[in-house]
């Protein structure tokens, strides 16, 4: 089960956002997508999930995503957006249950209960099940959204900045969870991520984008160096290794240096 993207391009009107992207990701792999704001990470994710209709070819497990029905796509691909909309007067359980929508016609059956229970037990959020969505913290909410995506039983999980609103502990929680899901279910994960320290630690491969193009793609440890950071982000950075993890500290912007 692997994702294969070939010559994917996308424009908003006349403004071209994505230029001819070709890459692939394997089952059981976390592929991180990083790059400056506006480089097209979120757009790429939406193109893969057919929220936008791109040019080019997106295939998963050998099937052309563009040729499938929306329900077929929903049974294969799940998406957790960056900005979370909290549904109206819903409990955590009801929210997670929404992920079963591609399988449910009207009433909730045993399989749905079992699936939701397995996921929330695995994620350690059973105690939240009948709390209201407005009564839980941002970190818990993010976990609920990932749980909602997981009960969809996806083979490909698309995450848009899953950690950007979270404190340190929840960042670690969520990233470890994502890696665990990937390994245990042999899910393929594509994740937009800003935090390069977390990316280097939790992604198997990292794709760096700049202005809608792939700038570099490979092992994070090989990829992330001072030149790349300078060219892509226009900052001077110091890169060290701390407790076995790569640490990238931005020092000053390149423009500042020129002045």
């Amino acid at each position, binding site marked *: 089960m692997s994702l294969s993207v070939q010559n994917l391009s996308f424009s908003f009107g006349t403004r071209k956002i994505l230029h001819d992207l070709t890459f692939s990701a394997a089952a059981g792999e976390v592929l991180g997508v990083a790059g400056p704001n506006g480089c097209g990470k979120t757009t790429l994710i939406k193109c893969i999930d057919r929220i936008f209709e791109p040019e080019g070819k997106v295939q998963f497990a050998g099937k052309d995503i563009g040729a499938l029905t929306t329900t077929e796509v929903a049974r294969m691909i799940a*998406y957790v957006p960056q900005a979370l909309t909290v549904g109206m*007067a819903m*409990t955590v359980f009801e929210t997670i249950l929404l992920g079963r929508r591609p399988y449910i016609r009207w009433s909730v059956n045993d399989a749905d209960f079992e699936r939701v229970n397995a996921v929330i*037990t695995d994620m350690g959020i059973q105690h939240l099940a009948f709390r209201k969505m*407005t009564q839980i913290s941002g970190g818990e909410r993010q976990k609920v959204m990932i749980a*909602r995506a997981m009960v969809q039983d996806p083979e490909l999980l698309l995450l848009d900045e899953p950690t950007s609103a979270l404190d340190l502990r929840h960042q670690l929680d969520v990233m470890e969870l994502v890696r665990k899901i990937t390994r245990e279910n042999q899910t393929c994960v594509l994740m937009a991520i800003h935090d390069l320290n977390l990316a280097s630690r939790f992604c198997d491969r990292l794709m760096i984008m700049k202005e809608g193009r792939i700038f570099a793609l490979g092992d994070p440890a090989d990829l992330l160096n001072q030149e790349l950071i300078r060219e892509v982000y226009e900052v001077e950075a110091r890169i060290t290794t701390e407790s076995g993890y790569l640490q990238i500290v931005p020092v000053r912007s390149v423009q500042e240096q020129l002045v």
Partner: protein
Amino acid sequence: MTPARNDGAGGVRRLKEEYRRFTGQRCLFITGCCILILVLVGIATTLGSADLTVGEVYTAIAARFFPAVAESSPLAYTIVWEYRLHRILFAIAAGFGLGVAGAVMQSVLRNPLASPFTLGIAAAASFGASLVIVFGIGPLTDELAVIISAFLFTLLAAFAIYSLSRYRGISPESMVLAGIILMYLFSAMTSFLQYTGTTEQLQEVVFWMFGSLQRTSWGKLALVSLVIVVCLPYILMRSWDLNAMGQGDQVAKSMGVNVSRTRTGLMMLAALITAVIICFTGIIGFIGLVSPHITRLAIGGDNRFLIPAAGLIGAALLLAADSLARTILAPAIIPVGIMTAFIGIPFFLYLFLRQREGYW
């Protein structure tokens, strides 16, 4: 991170029990609403300016079904069957329809202020009615012309909202903005008609806009019921999609929902239900806005339960309001559009102030 616990079966059982309890509460609420409506019907049939006893009223009702057993006086029979019953049933149908339409609009647009009346649909009906009242249309210058014109303008407004927002992409924001623009446009045009009309015309327009159940009939009741019965199954069928859309359009799309088709379809049906009701009654504004809120406060936001329950609350509210409106200043009848707000607001305020968190 909490380690995975090995309590699969127990966990599933707990989830099921809790969820069943939840569902049970909702079904209880719906049953309670039905009983309330039945009680209100029982009371409402006995109310009125004609001095009939409770016994006479129920004998007259029974006489229709069991003419051999129950024998009613012709007067009581006429009053009950020609004046009271269809009005009471119409209040139920209209309240139900307006409650459903309001719940659908609020969910479709993810907006607590959405209702047929904040979206210009009612303003369009007022304009349609005023146009005929002030100018008349040849031989048709009567009730029928007002009804047809109000109905057509309501649908026109719905179509305009659809076209405007389609041009900009069918999002909740574009629909709400298009609706508000239309509301102001039609209100201004109605005001202009009032300004140019004679005093009698002005009075008639104002009275139409108060909303009233004065002119109901069995035929109108049948028409309204038919539209609701036809539309409701589709609306309920789409309630999972509506729940998914509560999480945002793009999440709903990723769960396989055809968002713009669902949104357009449901908005058009809500507009149709509203149109067929208010073309007969005039503006009854409060029901569509507040019954979904009362229901959501009581049983939460799952549209599978919210939509029918909001309809029942709407039916109970409108029936209670109309019964009061008929009796409180008898023999004068207060327009029901005024009465609904007087009845609904205290009830809504109580629930709204009691529940601080987790609502909307």
